[in-house]
């Protein structure tokens, strides 16, 4: 167990270090998020939505911005390994599950950084206020994890294919749409301060994330070693 953690930590640290030196993924994610946020904020702004519609529409827009950004950058870790021809050596050196855990952690942290920057900006620009902060943070955390675990798996698949750019979003979106629906509902409930609504949505998200985690643990080695 400790060995597993140490080895996946090494993969994570390696990715983090190369990311710090190039910032490819973070730039892709961040710029995408900021651009969509600017577009959304300019065209819709804080006051153009009727008071009644705000919780739902602002929750939906927030998650759409996050998903857009995720589609732009979360495949980088795997695609880069293939593009720079480092994947075969990693494949021969590391245990597949170690790679999976390291990459998942990396994507999760990347999303976390993105969310940490994006959400305050969104609150300022869109006049987005949340009644239940704890509930909102939980939804963000569980949603970020489930998003990361799903995209990690899809990224591993598309990294071995040709013409990957479009393929990543084409393959991810059908898998992510249920998650998107639940996250929007959970966020809306958090905005309105409905603890019950938050916990319902959280259970759905956790259930989805749990299923994806189990399936990934079984299937990632198959994809990675192919």
């Amino acid at each position, binding site marked *: 167990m400790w060995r597993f953690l140490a080895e996946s930590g090494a993969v994570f640290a390696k990715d983090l270090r190369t990311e710090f030196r190039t910032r490819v993924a973070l730039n892709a994610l961040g710029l995408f998020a900021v651009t969509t946020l600017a577009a959304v904020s300019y065209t819709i702004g804080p006051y153009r939505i009727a008071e009644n519609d705000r919780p739902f529409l602002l929750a939906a827009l927030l998650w759409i911005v996050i998903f857009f950004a995720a589609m732009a950058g979360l495949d980088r870790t795997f695609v880069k390994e293939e593009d720079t021809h480092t994947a075969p050596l990693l494949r021969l050196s590391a245990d597949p599950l170690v790679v999976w855990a390291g990459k998942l952690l990396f994507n999760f942290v990347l999303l976390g950084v993105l969310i940490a920057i994006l959400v305050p900006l969104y609150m300022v620009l869109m006049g987005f206020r949340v009644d239940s902060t704890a509930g909102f943070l939980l939804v963000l955390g569980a949603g970020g994890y489930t998003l990361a675990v799903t995209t990690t798996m899809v990224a591993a698949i598309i990294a071995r294919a040709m013409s990957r750019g479009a393929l990543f979003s084409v393959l991810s979106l059908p898998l992510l749409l249920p998650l998107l629906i639940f996250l929007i509902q959970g966020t809306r409930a958090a905005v309105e301060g409905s603890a019950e609504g938050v916990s319902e949505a959280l*259970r759905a998200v*956790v259930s989805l994330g749990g299923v994806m985690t189990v399936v990934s643990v079984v299937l990632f080695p198959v994809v990675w070693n192919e």
Partner: protein
Amino acid sequence: MTDPRKQRRIWYAIGGVLIVAFLAYGATSFKSNLTPYVSFHEAEQSGKQVQVAGALVNGSTRYVDAAKELSFTMADAEGGTLQVLYKGVKPGNFEEATQIVAIGSFHNGAFHAEQLLVKCPSKYQGLEEASGKSGSRT
């Protein structure tokens, strides 16, 4: 590390059980409270944009053709009623509706609907049989 194949089978079994457990955990949450509808009472209290669902009370429909104003009464499962006002053309199959969803807000003593969704009787029954039994639904 006795027999890798046996071991793998055990892991797959654990995985399967976990997936079922997660799905069951999620399913309870979907069933209990993910519907978008609120009770009549809550609609009256909040005054916000909400969706209410209920049955049409027979004979309560009033429609002014010139002004295109429709008013009717909805009843929920507990027997509560709600007066609904709707500005717009009356949906074609409105009288036959068994269930109605009204989207709007409650103010000035009535529910002002901006949109109506009408569910038709979904009984796959012959025309002649059903006409004899209309109105006696559970």
